[in-house]
């Protein structure tokens, strides 16, 4: 059971926003997380797959079959909505059993299946309650049960955790992953929370202005972003515009850096990209060498296990993360911590 977008485009009527030429595939049992800023088109991708809007170009395939003309009720996809959309006038078992009711399954069997599904998400004892009596996290579980009870061909999650508190969000994140794994179902997760995406996505896709910028494993995305946008959007980053000045050497606004310049020609404009945890505090002796900097602390954020420090250096600023507790005045940026990204 696979879900596939094949060169899909859609523009909202009367605007120039939408999604453009997006191709991606979600394999059986795989969880693909789509992240992007608001208006990047990530929710539109979900609406296209669910059938709430029709693509202007391209095809949407479920198990290899084009479903472009199929109404949402014929697509057999489970959807968990941002505000859960549990029917307020139906008991929990009726909510979960609704998909079975419209498929003509009798009341007794429906109830049994619904209660069993509710038990799988830890809500079995509340089958006769109304949704209004539940907390956000509980509603989330019921919404998940409702979306899975009819053995859908795919699971779509639209910002499923955005309405929850930070602590509960982490717990529910694991819960979603557990249920998704046990159902072994192709899943699309739309979120603006990159931490959520990186932690549960088998693959993560980054959308920007309606286009798919990069898709890869969380590790690919974090360590080898294709451009400065992805680098800045996923995690913390240092990005310094500069120019290649010789083999293994670039000049940036904060000074000279030594790094691998393979594939870049002399004089080419680049953006040097360094994750803050790769910047190492040093003793202030070796300042003259490339990649060594001294400065003063501009901001020092205590985050528990680490400190996130902005170090003001001549020409710019270096952001670093360190577990050291003492003062930091000099840092070293090792050559293998630097990646050169194209100037867009």
């Amino acid at each position, binding site marked *: 059971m696979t879900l596939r977008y094949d060169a899909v485009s859609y523009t909202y009527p009367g605007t120039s926003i939408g999604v453009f030429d997006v191709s991606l595939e979600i394999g059986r049992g795989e969880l693909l997380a789509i992240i992007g800023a608001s208006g990047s088109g990530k929710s539109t991708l979900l609406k296209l797959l669910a059938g709430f809007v029709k693509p202007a170009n391209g095809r949407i395939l479920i198990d290899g079959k084009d479903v472009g003309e199929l109404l949402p009720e014929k697509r057999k996809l489970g959807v968990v909505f941002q505000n859960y959309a549990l029917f*307020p006038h139906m008991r929990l078992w009726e909510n979960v059993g609704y998909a079975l009711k419209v498929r003509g399954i009798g009341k007794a069997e429906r109830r049994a299946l619904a209660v069993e599904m509710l038990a799988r998400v830890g809500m079995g004892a509340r089958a006769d309650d109304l949704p*209004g009596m539940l907390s956000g996290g509980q509603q989330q579980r019921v919404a998940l049960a409702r979306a899975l009870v009819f053995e859908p061909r795919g699971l779509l999650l639209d910002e499923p955790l955005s309405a929850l508190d930070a602590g509960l969000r982490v717990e529910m994140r694991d819960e979603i992953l557990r249920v998704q794994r046990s159902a072994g179902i192709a899943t699309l997760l739309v979120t603006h929370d990159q931490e959520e995406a990186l932690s549960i996505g088998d693959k993560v896709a980054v959308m920007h202005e309606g286009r798919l910028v990069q898709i890869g494993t969380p590790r690919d995305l974090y360590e080898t972003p294709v451009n400065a946008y992805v680098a800045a959007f996923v995690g913390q980053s240092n990005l310094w515009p500069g120019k290649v000045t010789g083999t293994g050497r670039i000049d940036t606004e904060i000074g000279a850096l030594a790094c691998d310049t393979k594939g870049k020609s002399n004089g080419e404009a680049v953006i040097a990209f360094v994750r803050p945890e790769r910047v190492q505090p040093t003793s202030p002796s070796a300042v003259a060498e490339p990649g060594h900097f001294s400065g003063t602390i501009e901001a020092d954020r205590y985050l528990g296990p680490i400190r996130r420090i902005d170090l003001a250096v001549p020409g710019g600023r270096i952001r670093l993360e360190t577990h050291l507790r003492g003062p930091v005045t000099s840092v070293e940026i090792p050559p293998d911590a630097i990646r050169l990204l194209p100037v867009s």
Partner: protein
Amino acid sequence: MQVIAIAYLVFLAAPVLLLLLGSFGETWSNTLLPAGFTGRWYEEVASDPSFRRAFFTSLQIVGVTCVLNMLIGFPLAYAIQAGARGGVRFAARLVTLMPVAVPELVLAFGFILVFSSDALPWLGSFWLLAAGHLVLTLPYTVTALVADMEQLRLDEYEHAAATLGASFAARLSDVTLPLLRTSLISSMLTVAALSIGEFQLSNLVAGFLSRTYPVVLLQAFYGATGFACAATVVLLILAALASITSSTTAQIGAFEQKKPQ
């Protein structure tokens, strides 16, 4: 402040109280308050054939207006909420709200002009009067329903039901109508309250045999004061009943919607 508020309330309530008193008084002419006590004015109103006919015509008109509002207003509101975007939505709203902005008198003259022609000779008929009441009350139904649909986030529930496999008909009967139940009842009662008291259009459009209660009521003031008072009190009670039930239903509905949050 309090004095002003009380004075205003007295000013508001005084005519109603005087009507009540007058309806039970034997005689009332050139005095501040009526003299004597009697129930005969109510008996007379009840036995007057033209009042009886008008009373039942009014009830029929109210019933038909409510049914038509439901049959036309609900689909219209649904279409505006579900389908219309931007310009179309604005135009649909404008058209439904127009009768509120246009004076009833203008509307009535329009009806007279159009429906007294040989091609459309329906002036004075029951159904034309019902159509007039529909035009006047539809804006309230549509506005209230569209607002409730948006506030309920009906589209989200419908999307949810669709992804679960529910056809349009199943969504309508299992989700849309149950969620809008109180909203529908409350707007129908508002329509009833408006329709019961409607005078301007009815007075000009109704035929002699299809006169509604408020139209006939005007005649009462040419006769005995007690009779006029009693006839007015009957209308007052009818209208008040509809308004009070309407606002209570709306409140119960609002309470039920708030509860789940």
